């Protein structure tokens, strides 16, 4: 299982990583492996404001469709349009090319520390 040591995680298997003032969000290697081959990704519209814990998109594999939840509250400033034609990069590079959205956070101080670090995330999967 691949992991990003710099990212934070939540129970529903999204990761969040700081990139300048923005937060990049994707799903973990464990999540893409459980879903198997991803065939479709639905992303939010730029400028949408979405609260932490609310659904920001849907990822669909040959096995199942799953909602994705915001790890932090904020405004969507960029979405990964490439996933529309090549959703398979979520399988091949979940922490890199397979990112989903970039968020301008609105409540980061309160929310960031509530996310799991990599060790806690690994423990939550194995537990």
């Amino acid at each position: 299982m691949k992991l990003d040591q710099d990212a934070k995680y939540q129970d529903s298997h999204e990761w969040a990583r700081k990139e300048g003032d923005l937060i990049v969000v994707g799903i973990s290697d464990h999540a893409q492996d459980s879903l198997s081959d991803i065939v479709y990704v639905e992303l939010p519209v730029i400028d949408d404001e979405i609260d932490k814990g609310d659904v920001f998109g849907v990822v669909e594999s040959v096995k199942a469709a799953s909602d994705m939840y915001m790890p932090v509250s904020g405004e969507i400033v960029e979405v990964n349009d490439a996933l529309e034609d090549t959703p398979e990069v979520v399988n091949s590079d979940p922490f890199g090319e397979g990112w989903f959205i970039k968020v301008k956070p609105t409540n980061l101080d309160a929310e960031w520390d509530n996310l799991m670090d990599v060790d806690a995330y690994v423990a939550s999967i194995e537990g």
Partner: protein
Amino acid sequence: MYESLLFEISSPGRTACSLPDLDVPEAELPSEFLRQEAVNLPEISELDLVRHYVRLSQKNYSVDSVFYPLGSCTMKYNPKVNEVAAAMPKFTATHPLQPEETVQGNLQLMYELQEAIKEIAGFADVSLQPAAGAHGEFAGVLIMRAYHLSRGDTQRNNMLIPDSAHGTNPASCAMSGFSVQQIPSDERGNIDLDALRAACNETTVGLMLTNPNTLGLFEENIEEIAKIVHDAGGLIYGDGANLNAMMGVARPGDLGIDVMHFNLHKTFSTPHGGGGPGSGPVGVVEKLRPFQPGPIVAKDGDSYTLKMPEQSIGAVKSFWGNFGVLLRAYTYIRMLGEDGLRLATEDAVLNANYLRVKVGKTCPVKYDRVCMHEFVSMGDIAEGIHTMDIAKRLIDYGFHPPTVYFPLIVHEALMIEPTETESKETLDAFADVLEKIAEEARENPELLHSAPHTTEVSRLDEVVAARKPVLRYKA
């Protein structure tokens, strides 16, 4: 093998039907109703037509040819007497626009079917309008919304749905403008009562409950669940998909359910799946009666008439529902009678438990307690083997695969529902084949990975099919 389309085998002048002699005076159609262009229908002899459809039917898997343990779908045998009744000219030659007094028999049949479902489910009234299960479910959610709004209770916009629910449940809520809150299951496969209590408040529309749930387990706390939701002012929606485990034994209305749809094509042996059309009547308790979709058949002295409920959510189907399907369900209920329906349920539960114990030795059952009409095993029984491999290999042995990867809360789910109509010999054969497949999984896993081998097309590449769909019959 490529099967030619009817248009491709069409040859001018051939025909497969001869019209009967005219038995009414000949009349000219008014010119405005005459077609300006040819219809462009294929011209084919009867023999070519019969061969075309027989070949197509033989490519199909159906419950008339193989054991079909597709969990949550109740693929029971559809008795042929249903078709005899549905083919009676006194039904087939009627039209929904005829005056009521000329179709009293049809209306009586619909009325008696409403009454039968009311009795089976313990409800105050039933509407036969909806055209399928999910359609009935959507109508049911609209009834719940209409009820709350009629009381001026406008803040209820949140529906509670267990994590084992059918995917149609959240879809019906979204279409009705509600948000959805998922309620987790506990370690016995029941709804987590503490989570339910915490979720109930003044915004709760209600709870959508499948009982038995999609794990095939009876909700052991159903009375407590109903009390919690009702105390919060919410309603209980019953998903009727699994009524085959309760019919004639327990009545949903007595368990605290307020509104529920019935899959006539599952429980009452009418045409199913791609072979539909379906029918999904919806039943309600007394306080929801005014909001039912209509029209509904009412009895007025010795005659029958169509009536619209006072505050109806409206008509949800053209004309009066799928009448031909209602006719088959009515036949099924009348042929079995009260004792027969109960026996069907008891045998469905007995068959499922017999198979659960046998299959469980090969494919472990996630929540291994006495089940109702179905159970959920897990298919990752050897290194590198997935449920999908087992499902595909079963086809080689002449069985339709069970439902796979549902419910979502069971890893590598293999959901098996034998129904009451299968013999002990068939159940034994199925369990034996699974055991044999498990042996193959250990000794020759490639045999499973590349299955099926005996079908006209081998394993389909679902990933390519989803990512690069070819949507034409001929590329």
